[in-house]
């Protein structure tokens, strides 16, 4: 990273794909771990262990929601602990990677 580090805060980027129906439960988890910010995109489709899930399939209601959040390592650890069993039950996916938060906006992480 050759960017000036004083404008950047190292954080974890967590990306979750979940059933749209489970969104409420997920938001509760995010509140519990003290996440101060997250972004979601609804009407996503996908393919996974439960086969195809498409928001366009006539007659079924199968939509995914993609949730992206930047948070601290501590929060990420709590999240992983709470999310794993939920995913075992409801399916879905969770990816973690490194990222930098650009200072400027209110610190909602």
């Amino acid at each position, binding site marked *: 990273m050759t960017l000036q580090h004083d404008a950047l805060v190292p954080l974890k980027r967590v990306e979750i794909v979940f059933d749209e129906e489970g969104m409420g439960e997920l938001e509760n988890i995010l509140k519990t771990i003290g996440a101060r910010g997250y972004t979601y995109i609804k009407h996503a489709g996908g393919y996974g262990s439960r086969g195809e899930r498409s928001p366009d*399939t*006539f*007659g*079924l*209601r*199968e939509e995914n929601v993609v949730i992206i959040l930047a948070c601290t390592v501590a929060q990420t650890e709590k999240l992983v602990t709470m999310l794993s069993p939920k995913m075992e*039950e409801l399916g879905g996916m969770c990816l973690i990677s490194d990222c930098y938060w650009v200072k400027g906006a209110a610190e909602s992480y």
Partner: protein
Amino acid sequence: MSISDVLVPVALFFALGMFATLIKSDLKLPPDMHKMIVVYLLSGIGLHGGMELAHAGIGAALPAVLAALVLGFGLPIVAYVIMRMKVDPMNSAAIAAHYGSVSAGTYMTAVAFLTGIGVTFEAYPVVMLAIMESPAIIVGLILAGYSRAVVRKREGGSTDDKQKGVFKHLLIDSFTNGSILILFGTMFIGAIVSEANYDKIEPFFGTLLMGALCLFLLDMGLEAGKRMAEFKDVGIFLVIFGILMPLIGAATGLVIGHYWLQYSIGGVTLVTVLAASASYIAVPPAMRMAVPEANPSFYLTLSLGVTFPFNVLVGIPLYYWAAQYLAGAV
């Protein structure tokens, strides 16, 4: 009844939709358009049914309610038994549930058909339409639970608490379901508003209904056409079942409508259509959740791609003819 009478616009719009997928046209209607027309159509049927019921006396609807329950609980069991000859338990349970339930689109096409040729009918079949969604889901849940227990016993597994939660959830769902609520709610509204007030909304919910039904069936034709492309995946047994089962349902419906309920030719036709049709609105998502082991492609293709087109293009005139025959009119 000349050939041009049978060519009801709604059926032709349906055929146009199927034709469009056949020639791989890019014709696509907005998904929200479908949802909007469904809300509108259900409200229209409900209001009209409610008003007629209020005239006819709601007490007299009791036999219709009983008949609806008999069909809704009985037909899935018949369907399950046939299915099990060739198909695994879970898919059998999921598919069977669809055939106890009903298709409001098929029902309305039948109403369009009867109105087009000037045949009157009783107010009660619309009550049956509203009622028959739920029992089928319940039987589907029971059949799936039964199948699952059998499978599990064979494999030596334990009972499953999670499934019970799903069962309860879907049981509640089957009564709070949006389309059932609209049907019952608008039936209630139609029954209690004054005639003067009803007349204010009749142009929207009544006069326009047949035209809006055309666009609805155009859309259904597109969906049915897409599903037909999957015939080879579901196999010949299932496709045959998708035509045989409505005929079995129709026979039951004819008997119940004519001998038990003793409706007019129009009324018997509608009861027959209810018994012969398969759900593609409330039951598929319920089965997706309750029987995740079953392949959605199977039940959607059967219900949308086989039974719906069969009923709309062949079944309705056939059932009408049969109702006439029973009544000694042909």
